[in-house]
């Protein structure tokens, strides 16, 4: 446990003490701000209030930026260690590979969650702007659902990014690999879910599209099937990462 804590501490420092992290943070926070402005515009044009909380987490601007943002967070995790040769230094200490992988995953998750913090500030602003008499605004259930969904989707994306990073010593390759996989997945299944003519394909899309899932979560619907699917996804990619790091040494 103490080894894990040491590794996690190092990951957190590396995450929050690097200029690249702040660039990512700046752009993502600009996007959440943009999303909020767009949302206010929608509401000003008479869009239903029920959308207001939902779109805080699942605005398309945010959903479709995640496949870009997450690989930017995860690209350095293993690729940099390989490039510097520090992976060899790490794995010749009494560290277990799964501890290392989990520490990197947890560090990236922490950073990812910090990225989403402004959304709660926007929810608070909504709450303050809300005219008296409109009950249940913002919708706390939807807010919680959105947070859970965001964390689950993030866990899967980060696990995918981690696997990509473990496969190469080139951060750019890791980022582009993660981006291609995640964007392909999100866009592909979302297109299937919303515009496939074949009903079966449409169903497949609905089962797998993380955009559709996020919309549901942000409405406050926590579907246990989807939760299991995402946890299993993340676990599988982490397991694959452990195997890659164990196997790919030279």
């Amino acid at each position, binding site marked *: 446990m103490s080894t894990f804590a040491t590794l996690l501490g190092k990951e957190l*420092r*590396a995450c929050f003490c*690097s200029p690249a992290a702040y660039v990512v943070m700046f752009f993502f926070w600009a996007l959440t701000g943009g999303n909020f402005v767009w949302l206010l515009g929608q509401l000003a044009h008479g869009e239903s209030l029920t959308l207001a909380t939902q779109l805080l987490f699942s605005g398309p601007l945010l959903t479709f930026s995640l496949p870009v943002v997450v690989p930017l967070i995860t690209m350095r995790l293993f690729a940099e260690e390989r490039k*510097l*040769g520090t992976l*060899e*230094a790490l794995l010749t200490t*009494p560290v277990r590979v799964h501890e290392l992988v989990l520490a990197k995953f947890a560090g990236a998750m922490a950073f990812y969650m910090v990225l989403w913090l402004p959304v709660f500030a926007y929810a608070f602003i909504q709450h303050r702007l809300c005219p008296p008499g409109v009950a249940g605004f913002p919708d706390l259930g939807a807010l919680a659902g959105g947070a859970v969904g965001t964390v689950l989707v993030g866990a899967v994306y980060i696990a995918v990014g981690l696997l990509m990073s473990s496969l190469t010593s080139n951060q750019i390759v890791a980022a582009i690999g993660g981006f291609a996989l995640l964007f392909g997945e999100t866009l592909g299944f979302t297109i299937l879910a919303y515009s496939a003519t074949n009903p079966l394909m449409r169903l497949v899309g609905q089962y797998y599209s993380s955009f559709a899932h996020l919309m549901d979560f942000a409405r406050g619907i926590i579907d246990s099937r989807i939760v299991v699917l995402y946890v299993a996804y993340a676990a599988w990619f982490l397991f694959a990462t452990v195997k890659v790091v164990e196997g790919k040494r030279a």
Partner: protein
Amino acid sequence: MIKVSGVTKKYPARLAVDNISFEVARGEIVGFLGPNGAGKTTTMRLLTGYLPMNAGRIEVAGFDVEKEPHEVRRRIGYLPENCPLYPEMRVDEYLRFRASLKGVRPSARKARIAEVKEQCGLTEVGRRIIGQLSKGYRQRVGLADSLVHEPDLLVLDEPTVGLDPFQIRQVRELIKQLAEKHTILLSTHILQEVEAICERILIIDNGRIVASDTEENLHRKLHACSIIEMEILADQAAAVGKVDALGGMNVRNASELADGWLWLEIESDSAAMRVELYNLAVAEGWPLRELTEQQHSLEDTFVKITQGKEGGR
């Protein structure tokens, strides 16, 4: 301390280490010598359990590297090739991180880090960022890291590569000091380094151990005869004839120097034959100004060993 038996490591395209066996006793400083690409780094990675082997068995301090990798790693201080460090960390921060990973108890950590910093001459630079340190200092940080958990065995992969001559000397001095307490296996392709530091030499070439002995013994084995150089003032043909006639030696080379003196290169069974040569010169009335035994450099020996194998293949 180290017991390697019949270890083989194959990479997809080639055989990196071919059925090697050697032992290193506690307290020894062993130089691991070989041309680039001979398998030095691979062997060290096998020793530390970083790479899996295809066949054979390695024991470090009585623990099997494959069965009890963590016990082995606790006992090895390993400095990988090119001394990998995190450039964005401070020296103290890095050493704290490494000490904690290597299981140095929190209560002892601070004192231990201060100790290795003192040993490696890092006391002044504890607050500096590693990426801004000179190569020599970075190498010392790597050494301090390899020492921090008080390992029985130090495995140093090319610890002086890329340093300037002054830094090389400092790192060598440091390694010599460390040798008092630790068993050291040190790889290098720099011959002077081995001559300067090591008690015993392991020469590896093309994935095989081709020699394992002290430096003097290696010389003795390889150069059965000694070469004597002599400079006299005499007629060449006569002098060569007289020397050859002495028995037990023969002239390999003779030439007249620019200043009229005669230079002879004589091969003989032993360097003790110099006395005979002196007596001969006195008896013949040859003025004599030089009579020395050629020293074989480790370089000659090394070239002879690795080339010899080359020819035999």
